[in-house]
Each structure stands twice: as structure tokens, then as C-alpha cells.
């Protein structure tokens, strides 16, 4: 029996014909990388291929690596297998990876979202036979509000805090969420300060996107300077001494998990904004339909529930265990250190 075009191995998703891995979690010779989050782009591969907008990101994170950047839709052939990268809309430089051999097409999403956030190249559905999809938010409880409305609420929240002469601290992942927030913060309200992890990553991305001015918080920054202004910080900074020095402050988190009242209360955050870089429930269902795929493989998130639902809807759907999703889990929120400061 001929083996499938892509297989799930202990190293990662593998194309045996091309001898190439997609987002492998163990060191391999040849890796195609969907995007720069740590659970998808890991250390130790001999050769990396990714979208050119992701190149500076993974170089910043992984240091000296052997990496080739590709254009959207540019076909590259490895051992007769055709590969191409297509926008996934998750973060800057995030791609879906299309794999074609002998007329059969597979698409691996990495992580993706359907809403155009204005900084990541917007998601495009790609026709395929087999669609390997994430389903981080694969439950009908997750339905996103349009970004413009959420960002307006965030700016209003900042303005209210400023009126009370308090510092606003907004948590978001240092790669992706932080830049999406930064792009739309209203600089008429006040100044934007950053945590080191966010400042460093933003500097890397400034050549690609026009962001408002930011000021890095250093040892010399006085807390009086921060009053009325906003601080962008990674979730791991919550509860740290770094934050405690900023009193009086108000905290907020921008994440899909903020959908749950319990999630916000558990972290003792004052305010939760529901803003995600993943698909919501309708987004997942629409994109699956748009691919025209007959086979669906769910990699991370509420995989069992989501694939069961897809099977009921007539899809040939299954789940495969991967090591993706760490970036987004609750555990990661706590364990991700501020070591990169």
C-alpha cells in the first residue's frame, strides 16, 4: 500500500517522498515552517524554508540558522513534490503549507484566522483533498466580535484609566498579539510603553509594518511617567515584581480565552477583551467548507469534539496528536518566562 502524502511521525508531519518535515518538533534535516511561534518553529533543523516575512522573526528567535524565504504562492519542488506557501492570517509571515504530488493536494494550516487583522497577510482558502487544520477554539462557544469593535473598547478602556490617572497594562503574546494591539492603539490618548520581550520583537517587525512609537521600560523608567499611559506586556509578566512597581494600574488581557468569565477571574485580571489570532467556530467551519476537502485532520485544540462534529456533518475527519498548541495553552501562560527580556 502506498503511504499517504503526509504522515504523522514522532518527529513531526513528514512528506516521505520529498523527505521534508512540516513544523517538526524534533531536530530534522529539512523543515518547512508555517510561522514563528515557538511550538511551530523549533531549534536544531539543518535547513529551514519559510515565508520571507517570517525569516527575520525566526532568525531573531533561533539565531544563526540556514533559512530560505519564499513568496506567497511561489512553487518550489523537492524530489518531484510541489510545495507552496499561502497566507494563514495568524500573525505576520504566517503561512499555510500546500503540498501537491501526482494530482493530490494537502494543505497544512499551522495556525490561522479568517478575519483580516490589517498586519498579517489575510487568510486565503486553498482548494485541497486533505486539510490539516488546527482547532484551538473548535467549540460553538467561541464566536469573535469584529476586531474594530474590540479595539475600540480597548482604546476606551485606556482612556477611562487615563481619566483616573492610572497606568493601563495590556497583556498579549510578544509575537503577534502585541503587534496587532500596538498597530491600533490610539496615540491621541497617550504614550505606549513596552516590556522588553515585546519591544525586541516589534523592532524586528518595524521594517515590515508601520507601527506607532513605543518606549521600552527600563530600570530608569519612573512609574510617574507611566501614569495615564499604556504598557504592553507578555502574559507571563502578570504578577511579577516588574508589574507591581507600576501601581496604581489596571490590567487587561486580550485573548480568545477571555470568552470564559472563569479564565479572566482565575488570572485575577481586571478586564478581559476577546481578541484571538485563531479561527472561531464559524471561521473554522467556513474555511473547511471553502477548501472543498473531503478529508480533514485536526491537529491541536478541542480535536476530539471538533472532529466528531465534522464526521456528523459528513466529513471524513480524524485527529492526529502533535506537539502544537503549547503557545496558546494555559500552562504556557504561566510557564513562559520573561527570560527573553
Amino acid at each position, binding site marked *: 500500500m502506498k503511504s499517504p502524502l503526509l504522515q504523522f511521525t514522532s518527529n513531526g508531519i513528514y512528506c516521505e517522498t520529498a523527505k521534508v518535515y512540516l513544523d517538526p518538533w524534533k531536530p530534522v534535516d529539512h523543515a518547512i515552517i508555517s510561522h514563528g511561534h515557538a511550538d511551530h518553529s523549533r531549534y536544531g533543523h539543518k535547513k529551514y524554508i519559510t515565508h520571507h516575512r517570517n525569516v527575520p522573526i525566526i532568525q531573531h528567535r533561533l539565531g544563526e540558522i540556514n533559512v530560505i524565504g519564499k513568496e506567497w504562492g511561489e512553487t518550489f519542488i523537492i524530489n518531484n513534490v510541489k510545495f507552496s506557501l499561502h497566507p494563514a492570517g495568524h500573525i505576520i509571515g504566517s503561512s499555510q503549507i500546500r503540498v501537491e504530488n501526482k494530482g493530490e493536494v494537502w494543505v497544512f494550516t499551522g495556525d490561522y484566522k479568517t478575519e483580516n487583522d490589517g498586519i498579517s497577510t489575510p487568510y486565503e482558502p486553498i482548494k485541497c483533498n486533505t486539510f490539516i487544520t488546527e482547532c484551538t477554539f473548535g467549540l460553538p462557544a467561541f464566536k469573535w466580535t469584529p476586531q474594530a469593535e474590540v479595539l475600540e473598547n480597548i482604546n476606551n478602556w485606556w482612556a477611562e484609566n487615563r481619566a483616573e490617572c492610572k497606568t493601563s497594562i495590556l497583556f498579549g503574546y510578544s509575537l503577534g498579539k502585541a503587534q496587532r494591539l500596538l498597530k491600533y492603539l490610539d496615540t491621541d490618548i497617550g504614550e505606549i510603553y513596552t516590556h522588553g520581550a515585546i519591544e525586541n520583537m516589534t523592532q524586528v517587525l518595524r521594517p515590515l509594518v508601520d507601527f506607532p512609537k513605543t518606549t521600552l521600560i527600563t530600570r530608569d523608567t519612573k512609574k510617574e511617567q507611566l501614569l495615564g499611559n499604556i504598557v504592553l506586556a507578555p502574559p507571563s509578566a502578570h504578577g511579577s515584581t516588574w508589574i507591581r512597581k507600576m501601581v496604581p494600574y489596571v490590567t487587561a488581557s486580550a485573548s480568545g480565552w477571555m470568552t470564559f468569565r472563569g479564565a479572566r477571574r*482565575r488570572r485575577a485580571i481586571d478586564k478581559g477583551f476577546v481578541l484571538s489570532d485563531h479561527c472561531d467556530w464559524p471561521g473554522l467551519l467556513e474555511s473547511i467548507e471553502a477548501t472543498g476537502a473531503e478529508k480533514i485532520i485536526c491537529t491541536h485544540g478541542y480535536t476530539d469534539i471538533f472532529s466528531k462534529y465534522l464526521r456528523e456533518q459528513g466529513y471524513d475527519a480524524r485527529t492526529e496528536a502533535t506537539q502544537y498548541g503549547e503557545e496558546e495553552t494555559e500552562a504556557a*501562560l504561566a510557564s513562559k518566562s520573561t527570560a527573553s527580556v
Partner: protein
Amino acid sequence: MRNFAQLIKTLDSTNKTTVKVQALTDYFLKADDADKVWTIAILSHRRPPRPVNTTLLRTWASELANIPLWLFEESYHIVGDLAETIALVIPAADQSSDKSLTDFLQEMIALKKKTDEEKRAYLYENWSVLNYYERFVFTKLITGGFRIGVSQKLMTRALAKATQIDEDILAYKLMGNWDPNKITFQQLVLEENESDYLSKPYPFYLAYAIEGEVSDLGDIQEWSAEHKWDGIRSQVILRNNELFVWSRGEELVTDKYPEFEKFIGVIPNGTVIDGEILPFPKGVIGTFNDLQTRIGRKNVTAALLKKVPVILKAYDILEWEGKDIRQLLFIERRQYLEKLFKNVTEQSKSKVTEQNQNVIPLHLSKTMHFTSWDELALERDRSREMHSEGLMLKRKDSPYLVGRKKGDWWKWKVDPLTIDAVLTYAMRGHGRRSNLFTDYTFALWKDNEEGEKELVTFAKAYSGLTDAEFRKLDAWIKKNTLERFGPVRSVTPHHVFEIAFEGIALSKRHKSGIATRFPRMLRWRKDKNIHEANTLDDLKNLIP
């Protein structure tokens, strides 16, 4: 409804007590009187009976959301709150309702008697138009129980600020049985009305646990000691030839303990006793497990009454000859209590006829006086043989206060029993632990018939770990699930925890044959592997 929903949102979106009190105070200052009464009722767990059962709610919500019921159920296990799940899965809408909170509650009361078809129409109508937060609050009013970190005490404090009425007086007024649909704000909060007070208990005074050294309490001569009884804290009220028994949860439980009917005519009217309801099988104090068979039973059978009779272990007296004597000193109140007890015992003796059938079930919790803290510690060591859970220390010259206040009453419990057990099952938590596996089942080793070792579950626990530990364990559980049984997952036996518990007794209801009281996780024993966990026999050896 808009104002009430806004209030709930504010209360729910802050962890700061001052902000909560301020939000409630502002609400009490501007809300309509009827809405205020309902708000007090809801925040003190006096909601109207549920008009629609949850099975129907789940079915209809999944229909309106156009998802299969199983998917709704899965979502519910993850969200951890039924009203929140319903509000989330139903298609978005954006209207705000002009109807008042009272209007909604009256509709819900009327709804109870309607047909299923009418109920469904009513829910659909509101679910389809209300915006997310009002839809959530609306559904919460139907399912009941707002757990938003607002205690009755906090609510009372805000009401005191808004009305300028003393907080302790308000706490008293809000106690007992009142129907938010029949009482006005004037009657409930503002008016003085003697006849309403017939059944009313006093707010309980609650003790703090001793932190640090007991000798830090100073001169032992100032303290009176008693054993700390492990039953149901309650107030027994005799007024106007009527008996009222209140539990600490402010639940009227008179009907559950018919033994106390014997107090009528023996204990004089105008008496309120503070004490502990204790099981008393075969003439000795039983375990809390014995009492479990009585709690929650509305219809107490004659057989059960005979098997597990209860007594009242009295330790304080709050009203004497119709007068509130809480301001008297503890030792003065005890004199009244002992006098009462003496009278009752004498009457009881004269009434004993056949087989002790008419013994009045009133016992006195004896006070003890020590000359040194070491002597007191020795008495504490006897707690388990005395069927108590430790000692209570009460300052001799203290009045009876309201609520949990530090200083005059302390509990000094015996150290818990502990055992090392293996984590075998996990379930997601609720509220702030939604979507996180925090409710665990633990097992101990036992030799089976083939002489092999197997794990037998013996207790469930969900407290005692830090948030960081819960998150770690949650991530581990998600990766090490063996099987799923609805919301429950079995996990690879791997982690050992030191489980602490207060009491232990044989039990037919438990698979292990043993029931533990208030099990919780004391420590995550990362230093132990599962073969170093204890056996079921080790646990049995702890039974006194």
C-alpha cells in the same frame, strides 16, 4: 434589567472588594425599591424556584444554537457554567431590555406553571434578542446562583452604606424566611416590625483558626476552652410555643430534626440557643458520616430516627426571657445556659418513663479551664477520643459578635490525618476553574483476589494546590488521558499526593469501604513514585 446586568458585570469584572461595595452601593442608591428587594434576595440565595428544568434548558438552547445536544454538553463541561454556555452558543443579538429586574422575575415565577411550549417560546423570545451579557444574566436568573464573589456580608455592607442603617442590624433583618415577592423594601429594610422577628435567628459568630502559637493568645486565665464538635452549627429558637431550627447556612431545618420538638414546653419561650447538632447513635457521639444520613432528608423515617438520633450540644445562649443578651460577657451568658440546662435536665428526669423515650436531646458543651497552655495542648490530643475535632477557645469577657471577626473566638483543630494516594481520575472545575482539570479522584493500593496490587479509589479532592500547580497538573492531565467518561477522564497513575482529612469512618456507600471527612491535597509528593503510595489497609489503620 439593564442596570442589574450592568451591576453583575461590574461585580464580575473586578477582584477588588472596594470596587464591588461601591458598585453595589451605587446600585442600591438608584434602583427601584422592588428591584432592590430582588437584588438582596438573589445575592443572599433566595431565588424563586427554577421555572424550567435544566434538561429542557439544554435541549432548547442547543436547538436554538443549531448544534447537537452532545456538542452543547461538551461545551458546558468546558465552559463550566450552564447560563454562560447558553449565552455563548446562541447566535449573537444586541438588544437591551427596558423591563425591570422585578418584571423578569415575576414573569419567571408565572412561567413555572405554564406549558413546555409556552416556556420554550418565552426563552426563545428573550434569548434571540438580548445582548450577550443580558442574555447571560437572564439565563442565570433561571438557573439560579450568582457566584460572583459577593458574599452576603459584602452585600449587607453596601446596603448599610446606601441606607445609613447599622450593618449588624441589617444582617439581622435580612436573616430568616422572607419572600421577595411579598415583602417591600420598606418592610424588609427600613421598618421596625416586632412580629416578623418570631422565627428570626441571630447572625452567627464565627471563629478563626489559630495561626502560629496558641500561647500567643496571652494569659490562659482569660480563656475558656471547649471541645470543637463536628456537626451542624445551628440556632434553636423557642418563641411563642414554636420551635425554629436554623443551620449556619441560614436554612430553616426544623422539619429535619423532629427530636427537637421535645424542647417545646420544656425550654421557656424567648430562648435562643447556639450549638451543634450531633449524631448520637447508641448513646454516643457519632461521626459526621452518621449525620450525613440525616442531612438532606426531608422525610425522616422512624427507622432512621431510631438508628441515628440527634442531640443539640449547646454552647451559648443569645436570647433569654425574650431579651437579646448577646452583649453580655461569655461567662455571664454561660451562667444562663447552665441554669437552663439544669432546669431542662430536672424536667427531663421527671418525664422519663419507658426506655428513655422522652429524654430531652439537649447536652451541654462543657467549658474547661486550664492553668497552662501545655495542659490545654494535652486536652487537644484527646480530641479524637472525645469525638471532637479539636478545641474552641473563647475569651471569657467577650460579647457575642456578628460574623467572622478576629480576636475572641478561636478554633484550634487537631492536625489532620494524612495519607499518600495516587491520582487516577480528573474532572474540569467550575467558576474560576472552568476549562481546567482541578477536581481529582485518588486511589490507594489493595491486593486483589489474585494477589496482585490494584488501585482502589477512596476520595475526591479539589483544593489545596496553588494556581500554578493546578495549571501544571491540568496540562499533564490533558496529555496523559487514558479514557474519557463524559466529563471525567482517567489518567495514567503517575502522581502521588499527600491527602489530608479531618475524620474517617467505615462506610457502605464508598467503594473503598471508607469515608473520609473533608479530604484535600496537602502536598504534591513529587519525590514519591506510585508504588510508594499508601495501601487501603494503611488507611483502615487510621480508624480510631
